[in-house]
């Protein structure tokens, strides 16, 4: 978990895949925390990232830019990346801006993990 700047970013690992949970509003403050946590997980050896948007209602421009940065870092380190549980409005935004060309969109966290790992059954640890 990222404990910088006061509040925490929830995350956990399933094998070599890290699941990082975005907050209700993905802006500069929360985006930077997610970015730090993703970088930390990649530095720790994770080979795939799931960013879960189940709590996320809104993503602003800075949030988009930071997500692109995370995609860039993941690509450079050879890691796969998936976004899970993204609401319709945000999916439209990601599609319009072309983010969906670089990430897998999954219905939920389980589907994202399955897609990334190819496992049939994944034990989810919270």
């Amino acid at each position, binding site marked *: 978990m990222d404990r910088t700047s006061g509040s925490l970013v929830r995350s956990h690992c399933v094998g070599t895949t890290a699941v990082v949970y975005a907050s209700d509003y993905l802006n500069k403050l929360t985006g930077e925390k997610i970015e730090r946590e993703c970088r930390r997980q990649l530095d720790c050896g994770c080979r795939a990232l799931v960013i879960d948007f189940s709590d996320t209602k809104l993503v*602003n*421009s800075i949030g*988009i*830019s930071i997500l692109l*940065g995370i995609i860039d870092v993941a690509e450079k380190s050879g890691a796969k990346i998936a976004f899970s549980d993204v609401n319709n409005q945000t999916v439209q935004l990601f599609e319009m*801006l*072309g983010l969906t060309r670089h990430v897998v969109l999954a219905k939920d966290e389980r589907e994202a993990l399955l897609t990334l790992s190819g496992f049939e059954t994944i034990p989810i640890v919270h």
Partner: protein
Amino acid sequence: MEPSTQKLIHTFGALADLGQEIAGRGDFTEMVRTSMHLLLGTLALRRGAVAECIDEDKLRCVALWGVGEQTFTELSLTGAEKQEFLIGEVTEFLISNDATANLFINRHRPFLQQQEIELVLPMIVRDEVTGLVLLGRKASGEEFLSDDFETIRAMVRHIGVGIHTHRLLEQVAQRAEENRRLYEELRTIYKATVRAFAAAIDIKDKYTQGHSERVGRYSEIIAREMGWSEDEVEGIQIAGYLHDVGKLVVDRDIINAPYNINAKESNELNRHPSAGYEILAPINHPYADIPLMAKYHHERLDGRGYPDGLRDEQIPLGAKIVSLADSFDAMTTDRPYRRRRSFEDVVRDLRENSGKQFDGKVVAAFARAILKEVSGVTKERRITKMLAKDYLQGENVPTLLSDLIADLTNLTGAESGVQSYK
């Protein structure tokens, strides 16, 4: 929602955030970094950088995203290239293989291509190139559209103005700081000059060396105890140093007379407050009413003082403070015609003359300041050090002071309220 509507809403949101960011008073680098993120996020550009012009040809990277940090050590912007950006009708330059694109791009093309930069825009504010914005391709892989350029231009203009404004504010703050430092230096020089002047005044009177310096310090201590502001406290300290400046025009033999002077000599000596006022009045002091404090430091509350025989409220509070400091020093130091008085005797004098010669509230404040030292409430020994060794060592000193304070509080309702001498 239609994609075009969604794009419009997304862009409007970014422009609103950008305006707020640029208008803020936050950290400069953070402002540029956030602005750059807003620009990149609006069109989902994968990389970008903002650089400002420094010195002659140099570019300094303020923010970058997805671009190697070494980028800006490789880049420079010459005068001719700036000129080309200024006179050109084109506001953005695509990195293509077109050799005629632009001097800057032609010089840096291989490097910019290596960094996957697709677009270069100068930030121009008031006919001056303040920096460059470098942008990578869109995450969608699509070409830039004409409305993309409109958005980018608008946002780059905003960022340019933001950088320019921040730099201007920085310059203003820097100049204000320089002025403050100069002012502090002037104040220090002024104070040093005044103290030297005070020493010169005291040299004329061989029996009262250090008197003006002590009166300045006592006055400062009393004013501080009464809750005056630091500026006012400094002012009254200066007034204390200079209160006897008028003695410079009094015959040295009268000042140094080792006997009780006669009426004529007394009149001559009593000229010194008015003479002091005349010396000090033409000077533009950085503190208020210093000439008046010198003029009225021999006035009494009962109207029997000089030069004008003012009564209580007519006398500026600052002059009342200097008057007490002056008398206290006179009573507690040896003079040619008498020894200093015991502290008990001094306290008796202060009690008897409160409301006649001295203001009871001023006396009470001074007594509180002395009591704080002798009772160890404060570790400072400023008053003790100015007095003869062991002068305040008597066991009864704290009681004398406490009783005096209590009596004056009952008599005048004395308290350490803030009162301005202005």
